């Protein structure tokens, strides 16, 4: 990459937002120090990662992926089964990145030629198939159940507490993914993805191999959600089908992405920063799960009615 191109990437005013976000997330919660805030921080990172992974394909191109939870849960189960079968953590994390992306390659290679809603429904079906397979996992692998309790892995870095180490692991992943999405958005791949989102026929005529770049975007996204699922599974130390292969989670990811604005690198961050505090408030205020779900439903409906293009779309118009 030559210097002028590099300066072009890091020349805009968006970079200040990027740096300040990195500093704020790196400094404030660890200084505040309470377990509660660190836990919320980890959840903010998790939701940002999942939404970024959705945004890479669906936000830019408009091919809506309703199967994020499939790759997320696959990552979690890979780590869970690896720990049960004594496979080293590093190898397991590597597999949690590779296997979902391979699945993404297979699914994307065959189904990204389908247009719009049909692709979405295919991904939803894939999620339901995979969740069904893992729900009945004892059918394939004897002596395992779909609920996996794994021991807390001592991941202390330099004498930090366990939760603080997890905070920093998620933080590093968050920074890496945010910078990567930023670079992708300003690169040739990002422009090609946006071109597909604007008008796929024209993009193809301009010489873009649309199926190839869509599959690449899907695979990058699945790597992110696979690793996020693996790390969150280790953090929770409990892996179960309703938590990880959750249709609700998939829809929340879409909702957060639309809320923050899809097709922009900061959209997922804005969406998550708005969603997670509200989520916490709902959990604190309502102790009956039915009422809290009614609140979630109302949130979904209100945001979609009042700002169908999201807050990020609004900010995008103001910045330009």
């Amino acid at each position, binding site marked *: 990459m030559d210097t002028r191109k590099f300066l072009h990437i890091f020349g805009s005013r968006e970079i200040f937002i990027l740096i300040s976000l990195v500093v704020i997330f790196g400094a404030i919660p660890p200084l505040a120090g309470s377990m509660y805030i660190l836990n919320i921080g980890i959840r903010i990172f998790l939701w940002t990662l999942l939404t970024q992974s959705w945004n890479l394909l669906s936000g830019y191109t*408009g091919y*809506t992926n*309703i199967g994020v939870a499939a790759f997320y849960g696959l990552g979690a189960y890979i780590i869970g089964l690896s720990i049960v079968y004594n496979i080293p953590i590093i190898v397991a994390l590597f597999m949690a990145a590779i296997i979902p992306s391979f699945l993404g390659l297979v699914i994307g290679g*065959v*189904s990204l*030629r*389908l*247009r*719009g*809603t*049909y692709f*979405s*429904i*295919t991904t*939803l*079906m*894939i999620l*339901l*198939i995979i969740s*069904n*397979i893992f*729900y*009945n996992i004892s*059918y394939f692998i004897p002596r395992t159940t779909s609920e996996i309790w794994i021991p807390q892995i001592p991941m202390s870095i330099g004498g930090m507490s366990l939760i603080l180490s997890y905070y920093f692991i998620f933080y590093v992943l968050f920074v890496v993914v945010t910078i990567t999405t930023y670079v992708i958005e300003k690169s040739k791949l990002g422009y090609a993805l946006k071109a597909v989102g604007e008008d796929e026929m024209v993009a193809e005529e301009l010489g873009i191999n649309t199926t190839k770049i869509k599959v690449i975007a899907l695979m990058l996204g699945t790597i992110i959600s696979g690793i996020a699922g693996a790390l969150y599974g280790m953090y929770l130390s409990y892996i179960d089908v309703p938590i990880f292969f959750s*249709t*609700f989670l998939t*829809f929340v990811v*879409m*909702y957060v992405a*639309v809320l923050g604005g899809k097709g922009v690198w900061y959209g997922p961050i804005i969406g998550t920063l708005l969603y997670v505090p509200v989520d916490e408030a709902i959990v604190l205020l309502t102790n009956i799960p*039915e*009422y809290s*779900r*009614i609140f*979630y*439903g*109302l*949130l*979904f*409906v209100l945001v*979609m*009615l009042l700002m*169908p*293009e999201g807050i990020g779309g609004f900010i995008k118009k103001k910045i330009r």
Partner: protein
Amino acid sequence: MTSIIDIAYLIMGLVSGGFYSLVVLGFSLGWAVSKMPDISYIMFIYLAGEITAIFNKMFGVEPLLLSPLIMGLFFGLGVFMYKVFVSFLNRRVSEPGLVGLTLTFGLGIILENLMIVIFTPDFKSATSAYVLRVGDMTLTIYHVLALPMAIVVSLLLYFLIFKTRWGILLRASIQEPIGAAICGIESEKLRMIMYGIAYSIGGFAGTLLPILQYVQPSASWGIMPISFIIAILGGVGSIIGTAIIGIIIGLIASYSSVFLPAAWVSTELFLVLVIILLVRPRGLFKGLG
């Protein structure tokens, strides 16, 4: 012995196939009209089921007597949904499919949990006074009539959409909205009425639900994937396709429960759908629009 079992599976397959056809006819037509799959439609079917089950249990009302009332209410509900959500989103959003899916998912969650709070999460069913005995099985009149009713409803819809002037105008407004508007067709009004009709079919299916299956608010998530499968395979908005595929899926689900554990039946159906979508991305039948 085996032949009796086979006939039982055949009957159950045809009954549930007829029921699925009825459910998905409204779903698929609504999808074709609004350009977005409406998840809350399935929840409203369960609402109709809950109401029917309560009336049946408390006053012993036959579900079929209740269905005209519920169909009327659901027609109004469909018109309301179209006015408030569908036409609003179609005007304001560039790609209503994604936003509509998320919005109706939110509505679905609200409805499901309101139903749990109001009607309790118990499993409920209804009974009928008209019972037939076929061999070892006890069938109500509804089991016998499910498939014929699905066929009658789909034939009526086919006649309405393909043989009447109103249907021609409606198809024009779905396939070529701008051209239809230039010709002076009030497409919003036509679609609104069609959406109401789609919902009233859902209300009708809902009154049969507590007697053919059972009602439980969260069970609606189980019927949703099956509805998607039937709607897509049959072609979105295709009446004959939906009816045929609905019956076939009912038979497949019934017969494969002989060989497979119940949990695997839905997985098998999803695999069939994915494979067929790869071969024929637009479904097996030509849809509307």
